[in-house]
């Protein structure tokens, strides 16, 4: 067979592409039903974007490690500047602003920061000599890298994205070998500081999200509405769901955001636990592949980047699913490959593209300091 297929095509990571295609197609089916059996406004666009971004990822997979290394800090700086731009335009526009309208595309720089921070932090620990890893010099630059983007994203304000950015960076730092006690101590500090942050650091609407998350039935028509309706959708689906196109929660508009953040609930209502397990299994395969790429990678930058990007996608999935199942507050994070939305899909596919690139170019044994 390989005789008939040109080498560049045969070399493509077909298994991964197939997996992504299965998930995006499931998303397409769910969005088709959510629109009442229509390609517009979501399903068609969703699939179109997926194909374009998949092509982009395949192109990205041709670049080798040194390209990403070179790009790491410049990309970080560009995204920080874009974030500043958003803040300035937002200030002019008056109110919360997350978008940067470039005319042909609406960019969400905070989304891109999720990728950029991984590259930048991985590059930093790549550059850091192994002997320095247990010194203060391994810690403060991490916070320096996080400080400005986090401040800017929090200002938007977008708590969900901030958490993802911080978590991504910390994961890379953890994998880079920062002392364990720092993380244990940090967790303890958060446990103490979280209530203080809740009372003094959060906007009132964010506080409300946290309290309604803790008791959604308390406020079924206010901010608890999302979680209550989402649980009703998932719960009423049962084992095998109400069937394709038969979801009432989504079709009769009881489920808000049924095509974006709560797309999992829309799916679960029609496909039941069966559909949910299928999606979880797909994500399991994806993360296994991502961590596998990281394990196989030979250079420190590749290792850290691959693992960091995998964890970034994982955060999307974990936070979104915990949110729709009532285990986390509503923070506005979409579900990769299923939620309708260009920016997040682009971010995910950039992650996938870099992972594919590392998969293709595992690098040579030993690093700069090998």
């Amino acid at each position: 067979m390989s005789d008939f297929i040109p080498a560049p095509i045969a070399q493509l990571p077909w298994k991964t592409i197939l997996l992504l295609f299965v998930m995006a197609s499931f998303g397409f089916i769910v969005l088709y039903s959510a629109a009442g059996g229509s390609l517009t406004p979501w399903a068609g666009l969703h699939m179109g974007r997926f194909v374009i971004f998949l092509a982009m990822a395949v192109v990205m997979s041709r670049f080798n490690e040194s390209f990403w290394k070179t790009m790491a800090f410049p990309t970080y700086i560009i995204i920080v500047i874009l974030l500043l731009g958003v803040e300035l335009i937002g200030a002019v526009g008056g109110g919360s602003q997350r978008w940067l309208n470039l005319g042909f595309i609406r960019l969400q720089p905070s989304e891109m920061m999720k990728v950029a921070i991984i590259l930048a932090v991985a590059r930093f620990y790549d550059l850091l000599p192994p002997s320095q890893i247990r010194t203060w010099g391994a810690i403060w630059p991490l916070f320096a890298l996080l400080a400005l983007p986090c401040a800017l994203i929090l200002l938007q304000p977008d708590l969900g994205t901030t958490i993802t950015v911080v978590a991504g960076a910390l994961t890379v730092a953890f994998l880079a070998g920062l002392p364990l006690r720092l993380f244990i101590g940090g967790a303890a500090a958060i446990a103490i500081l979280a209530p203080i942050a809740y009372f003094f650091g959060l906007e009132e609407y964010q506080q409300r999200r946290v309290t309604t998350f803790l008791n959604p039935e308390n406020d079924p028509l206010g901010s608890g509405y999302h979680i209550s309706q989402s649980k009703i959708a998932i719960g009423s689906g049962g084992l095998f769901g109400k069937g394709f196109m038969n979801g009432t929660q989504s079709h009769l508009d009881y489920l808000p955001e049924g095509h974006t953040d709560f797309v999992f609930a829309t799916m679960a209502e029609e496909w039941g636990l069966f559909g949910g397990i299928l999606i979880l299994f797909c994500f399991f395969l994806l993360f296994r592949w991502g961590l596998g790429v990281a394990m196989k990678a030979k250079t420190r930058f590749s290792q850290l980047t691959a693992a960091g990007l995998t964890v970034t996608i994982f955060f999307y999935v974990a936070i979104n699913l915990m949110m729709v199942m009532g285990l986390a507050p509503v923070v506005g994070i979409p579900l990769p490959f299923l939620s309708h939305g260009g920016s997040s899909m682009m971010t995910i596919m950039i992650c996938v593209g870099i992972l594919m690139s590392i998969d293709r170019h595992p690098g040579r044994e030993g690093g700069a300091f090998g």
Partner: protein
Amino acid sequence: MKQPKTISSAMQTLSFSRRATVIGGLQIGVGVLLAGRMAYISVAENERYKLLSESNRVNLTLVPPRRGWLVDRNGKPIANNKTDFRVDIIPDRLRDKEKTVATVAELLALDPEELERINRELEQASSFQPVQVATGLDWEQYAAVSVRLPDLPGVSPRQGFSRNYPSGPAIGHLVGYVGTASAEDYKENPDPILITPGYKIGKDGLEKIFEDRLQGKPGAKRVEVTARGKIVRELSTRPDVPGKALQLTLDVDLQEYAARRLGTQSGSVVVLDCLSGDILTMTSMPSFDPNSFSDGIGVTEYGMLREDDHVPLLDKSLKSLFPPGSTVKPMVALSFLEAGLSPDESVNCNGGLQVGNRRFRCWKRGGHGRVDMAKGIYQSCDVYFYHFAQKIGINPIALMANRLGLGQKYPLPVLSQFYGTVPDPAWLRKKYDREWQAYDTVNTTIGQGYMLVNPTQLAVMAARIATGKNIIPRLILNKKKAPIDTLNIDPEHLLYVQKAMSDVVNGPGTAGRARLPIEDVKLAGKTGTAQVVNLDFGRGGNDVAWKYRDHGLFICFAPYDNPRYAAAVVIEHGGGSSSAYPVARDVLTYLYDREKAMNVLTDLEKSWGGTIQERMDSKMAAYRAKKNLEKAMAENTDAGAGE
């Protein structure tokens, strides 16, 4: 630190693998947690969420049930349900609001005041809540809107039922009326049907008493709705179960005739069937139109009813008490006979009788000359009764009054009845703490003083004298004929009194004009004139103010020789018994010859200014004009004061 200062790349790679494995493990842990959570929600709690999802999706609307009919003894409807056409606007479906509203307003000829209300409600209404445009439309108006429907998106003509009383005011007091449930009703019984638009409950009279029977069971319509309340489709409909019909003993034609025959007077007509006690008519006029009440009565109309000195809101047949006047004389005569007085014993009437230090006059100033019992009844001689009552005493009279139904409460399905007073020494001691005097007996014996009765009691007394049986009035028809107890009055006595009562009408009596224009049917009766105020004002005839005039009363039964019907007529401030017996004559004539009775009525109504409805309408118009004038004058005064 215990670790070596230098950490090599190889060690870092090892640490990376270890920590990456930890992260992979954590991810699997989160995955298992999520799967478990989802399984818990969708399997363990499935039932609960399914229910919640259904209650989201399905909206239950109740359909008000049709009320049971009230029918008369012949099955003719007294209260039924009329198809009610209404038009609503559903704001959300409107395309061109101004044009649609204008078109509908033109089709239904709505007045500007209504139009203003509709526009105001359209501004305030949430998008799916219908705004009422008009109710109680006729078929033509309904059809006019319906055929234009394709051009009128958002307009919804609908069909419902509303309570209808074909006899209107003639039946008002008896049946009561229906109305929307009040906040208190809902608090007492928080059934959602109570607050469903179009649902009415009995508010007064039979409608209230038989509410449970008439009510029926509401139907239900299940519809699928979106989160914003928009109806997607109808799922299933359970039809309503109409309430059970109730058959009354009334003859609604007779009831209507009696009400009309009372004319402009204030009074009551009660007709009983002597064979069963069935109430054939129980009229009280003036009255109110229960149809107006059931549609929600206007403030002006209610104000007019309340201010009227003829008290249209009061049921006079059961709740107005009158001195019975001379109508008690046959009853008193029966008590005399039972006490052993020979009917032939007589007294000389010279126009009055001295009792103690006061002279009690006979109604005939010149006196009746020699009076025996029969003449005492048919000429209604007061002196005869003054004289013999003092001899026999009050107790046998009071006893007979009670036996014949006076002072008694009847087992009728009514909210309240006033049963009046039959005074005796024990009662007087208890009530006024004084001893019974001879003049009390004298007063009571001509139906004055403390004695008070309602018109229904008078009819029952007539029926019991006519039959000698313990007739109990009934309002609900019961086909089973229960034997009626006898009153144990000597038949001889009864025959004697009945003959005297016949002579009132057919002989040398006081009511010759009450003779029935029917061959072979003789009416027996007794007139009564009840004084309202002391005679210092002179006789309370038609020459004094209405409220000082005497009440006119008449009790009767027919046919005299084989009693079938008994009746009582009371005309409040009628000026004397001559206002009452022509009414009784015509009402009883109606039972035998409707055409003859109707001819009399038609001529009378011409002189009164039309039928009940026509007179009520013109009265209403006059009242409205008066109110408007008063309002205008008040405004002018205000304006004048302001300058």
